[in-house]
């Protein structure tokens, strides 16, 4: 749960920072209007950092983030599956509802599972950072960070 929470925080912060750089490009009177719309009902504010929520929130910024991330490194597709699995376990623990069909046929968690998820999150965080940096640089004409 802690790992999922940290990763959610990272994705949410990255999204906020990207929005900040984008809104700087519009006239000042419109910046907060645009900011409000790009953040309205953001899934990462309330939901888990699952692939669907991440894809939906970053799609507002004009890209299919999972396509870009997979293009960057084909191993990211497997990491995306691990992220999904991590969130399934997160929900199982939070709701005390261990359905083997959703948890890879098991109802107990191993330390090595968490180690794999942690590594997957680390790689995905780097990939998101790189993809968004490239995306914003193409949009804005200069690297945002």
């Amino acid at each position, binding site marked *: 749960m802690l790992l999922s929470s940290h990763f959610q925080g*990272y994705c949410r*912060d990255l999204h*906020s*920072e990207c*929005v*900040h*750089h984008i809104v*700087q490009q519009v006239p*000042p*009177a*419109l910046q*907060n*209007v645009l*900011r*409000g719309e790009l*953040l*309205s009902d953001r899934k990462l504010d309330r939901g888990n950092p699952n692939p669907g929520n991440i894809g939906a929130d970053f799609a507002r910024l004009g890209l299919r983030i999972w396509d870009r991330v997979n293009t960057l490194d084909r191993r990211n597709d497997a990491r995306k599956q691990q992220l999904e699995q991590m969130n399934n376990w997160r929900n199982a623990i939070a709701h005390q509802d261990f359905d083997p069909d959703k948890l890879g046929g098991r109802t107990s968690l191993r330390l090595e599972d968490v180690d794999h998820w942690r590594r997957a999150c*680390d790689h995905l*965080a*780097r990939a*998101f*950072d790189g993809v968004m940096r490239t995306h914003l640089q193409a949009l804005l004409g200069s690297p945002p*960070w």
Partner: protein
Amino acid sequence: MPYTRTVHDPVPRFQLGARVRFRLANQVVRGKIVEYRGPLAGGRPLYRVEVPFDTNYVKSYEIPEWELKPA
């Protein structure tokens, strides 16, 4: 640079619950700070502010500190 993007976390000027105002399009709106988001506005403090537009509609905004004034 994931996870540790920021090396300097400035001290936030506003506390949670503080009443603030900021410009939204051609008007000034008033709201309440509900979250300090950290130094995410290009390295400067960013806050989440809830603005009540009517009795059943509250919208939240992430506003950089330099745009906020005490209400």
